[in-house]
């Protein structure tokens, strides 16, 4: 009975994990779309952050959207999850730091997070909070994939190992 209960919770845990993984994947996909379409406008947004050296601005603004697209696909299709989740977590941490840094020094810039259009409005504390939420989801996914899943496997719980392992 106890074992069944335990199994049930881990099943819910897995359900939450997969739901959040697909959600975060969709977020990354959505974020990549507009930037891939408008490289020049996105480069301007990256430049406006005033964080990267001029020479790196274009390269980063070209590669970043494609990286987001790949991460989105990996997360949604359950492919290369450890790598995708780790990269995603680090990216979201960097975004958050960049946003917070510019909030603190009072730079009034457009976020360039989901849209290259200036209609999205300037970045504000809400933008930082939104990124924090995504970051926490990514951290949860990372903890799950790097610690919880592996703990299950190590216990040699054969049923868990079978369902958990890819």
């Amino acid at each position, binding site marked *: 009975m106890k074992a069944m209960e335990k199994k049930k919770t881990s099943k819910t845990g897995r359900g939450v994990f997969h739901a959040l993984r697909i959600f975060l994947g969709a977020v990354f996909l959505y974020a990549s779309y507009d930037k891939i379409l408008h490289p020049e406008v996105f480069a301007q947004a990256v430049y*406006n952050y*005033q964080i990267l050296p001029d020479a790196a601005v274009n*390269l980063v603004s070209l*590669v970043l959207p494609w990286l987001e697209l790949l991460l989105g696909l990996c997360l949604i299709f359950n492919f290369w999850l450890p790598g995708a989740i780790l990269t995603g977590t680090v990216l979201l941490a960097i975004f958050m730091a960049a946003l917070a840094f510019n909030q603190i020094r009072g730079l009034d810039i457009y976020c360039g997070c989901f849209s290259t259009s200036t209609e999205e409005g300037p970045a504000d504390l809400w933008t930082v909070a939104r990124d924090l939420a995504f970051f926490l989801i990514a951290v949860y996914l990372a903890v799950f994939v790097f610690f919880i899943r592996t703990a299950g496997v190590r216990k040699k719980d054969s049923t868990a190992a079978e369902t958990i*392992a890819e």
Partner: protein
Amino acid sequence: MKGHQSHPIQKAMWQVPALLFLAALIAVGVNHWRKDGIPLIGDWSAEARFSDAAGQSLVIDLDQARRLHEIQEAVFVDARSESLYRDGHIKGALNIPWQEVDRYFVEVMDRLDSEKAIITYCDGETCELSHELALFLREMGFENVRVLVNGWTVWKDAGLPVDASG
């Protein structure tokens, strides 16, 4: 399933660089083939940034701006907010805050002289407001519009005539 399953952290160790490499490869490839690709290393100097659609630089240097101010052959337009304008601005400058450009433009329209040069400015090396405003004024039919980069700071620091109004 493989008999020996490597730890997710080990997997991430090669998946992260693989994702970065793939993203860079796709990004550079797609950018190379698309029509609206951007240079991998961009020119983000002020001269290049503050230019019109044809790529012609709009930048005017402080010396030229000062001379035009002396002989009253230029109308200066402050693109910053009204409160900053009130705290201090280039002597005789008009105020068209970019955030509400339509409203303010109508207010000062009569005082813009299409015979004279129009010099827009804001504050900070990277402030884009003066540039946006300059392009807007161009569109409105004023041909001789220039941008004084980091205008308020360089003007003030050079000890040139300023004004404050309540």
